[in-house]
């Protein structure tokens, strides 16, 4: 484990020394503060719109950070040749993949924490309440969803040559899952065979990232989701994370180092 955490530590340092997070955070804060300063139509429930916009920005920013950070890890190690001295030490390729994953995932967790603290403070100024349990459920589910995204981008970084192509493909897949993933089974009903089976198979194999989207819970102050469902969702995420990471280890095992 020491090797995994040593590698993860470098990834976390990289994230807070780069400008990506700060830029996205400042943009989110500025947009939200400008929106908060405007009173649209004297609507007493305007705070909900503000929360919705803020959470949308948090989701977009976190996905950008997760995909771009994970997608560049292994290609940067190869390009700068730091992979050579690293693998010349008693570090296995599996430890490297897991270290990179935990580094990216923990780094995403830290950025989420900052975003959710800002979101909580912003909504508290309007609604004068702190539904902490709701925020906790939403943040944990969001974080595990990012775990799937990070693991998927790491696998992609070993399959596709350039980090940019990997990032683009990851964004298309994530967008596709978030927007149409939940409707695939209904789409399949109107199709002929063998397309119906293919689309149905796709519905049951893709990781349903939309399960982890609890924005409505926070925006409308809905009652908490049962903890057992949360635990089940987290187990579902863990299973997909492991599938992608094992895939990444298998691909990386066959890859030439230089």
């Amino acid at each position, binding site marked *: 484990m*020491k*090797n995994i*955490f*040593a590698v993860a*530590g*470098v990834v976390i*340092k*990289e994230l807070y*020394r*780069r400008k990506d997070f700060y830029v996205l955070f400042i943009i989110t804060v500025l947009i939200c503060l400008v929106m908060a300063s405007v009173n649209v139509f004297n609507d007493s429930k305007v705070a909900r719109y503000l929360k919705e916009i803020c959470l949308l920005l948090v989701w977009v920013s976190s996905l950008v950070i997760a995909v771009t950070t994970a997608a560049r890890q292994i290609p940067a190690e190869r390009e*700068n*040749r*730091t992979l*050579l*001295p*690293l*693998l*010349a*030490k*008693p*570090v*296995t390729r599996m430890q490297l993949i897991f270290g990179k994953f935990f580094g990216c995932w923990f780094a995403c967790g830290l950025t989420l924490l900052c975003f959710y603290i800002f979101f909580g403070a912003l909504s508290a100024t309007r609604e004068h309440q702190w539904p902490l349990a709701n925020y906790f459920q939403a943040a944990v589910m969001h974080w595990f969803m990012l775990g799937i995204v990070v693991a998927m981008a790491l696998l992609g970084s070993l399959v596709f040559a350039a980090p940019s192509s990997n990032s683009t493909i990851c964004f298309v897949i994530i967008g596709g899952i978030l927007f149409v993933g939940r409707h695939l089974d209904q789409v399949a009903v109107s199709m002929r065979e063998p397309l119906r089976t293919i689309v149905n198979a796709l519905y049951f194999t893709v990781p349903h990232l939309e399960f982890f989207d609890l924005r409505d819970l926070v925006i409308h102050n809905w009652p908490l989701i049962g903890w057992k469902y949360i635990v089940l969702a987290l187990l579902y995420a863990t299973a997909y994370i492991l599938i992608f990471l094992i895939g990444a280890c298998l691909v990386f095992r066959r890859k*030439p*180092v*230089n």
Partner: protein
Amino acid sequence: MTVILQTQKLRVEFRSHEFRQTPKIALQGLDLEVRAGEVFGFLGPNGAGKTTTMNVLLGFVPPTSGTASLFGIDVRQPIARQRIGYLPELTYYYKFLTAEELLRFYAKIFGLPRAEADQRIARLLKLVELEHAAKRPIKSYSKGMQQRVGLAQALINNPDLLILDEPTSGLDPLGRMKVREIIQRLKSEGKTVFFSSHELGEVETVCDRVAIIHQGVLKAVGRVHEITGQHANLEKAFLDIIGFQSQVQATT
């Protein structure tokens, strides 16, 4: 003397992905032995198989046939790399880290306790003359400084065997001299150094024994004066051994 690094009938073939392309033979039956405490120079023209040999020794490339071992352990076992230090050619270390942080990262991988790591980092930064820049990000380092930080990372575990791939490549004369001095100091500390270089004058000065490889085949191995023989210097001997002079004579 104890044999630290050994290859026996080592053969490496790279298969081409293109249809009907024959595999490229990088190494053909390489037999090498490096003994404890010696500085061993590994010479050959570009594409001779030096880096492939190092890649096999470091477990990056599996041998097609034959064996390679470090300290008697098969190189495919990660534990074989516990007592070695490796400096690759032209590496750009994590530019967002400082030299101190980089060395601490590698120290963690070797499981060094914090106090011992601190002590060793300070000693290595002094050895490679980077104490003044220890807290500066690596992105602000010159090429020579980057190479020296690379040398420091290769020494973080106090290795018994150092594998250096063209350690002076791309350095100015001053940088080369500093790296040479470090190698000589390591030799005086009883370390075994296995290094490849194109700087034959440097090899002549530093090495106890040398091996010359050409097109994946070991052409000569022995003490520098044995290899040099009746030639004026190692460079002339090298050119003769790889067949360059006979080619020149044939064309004139």
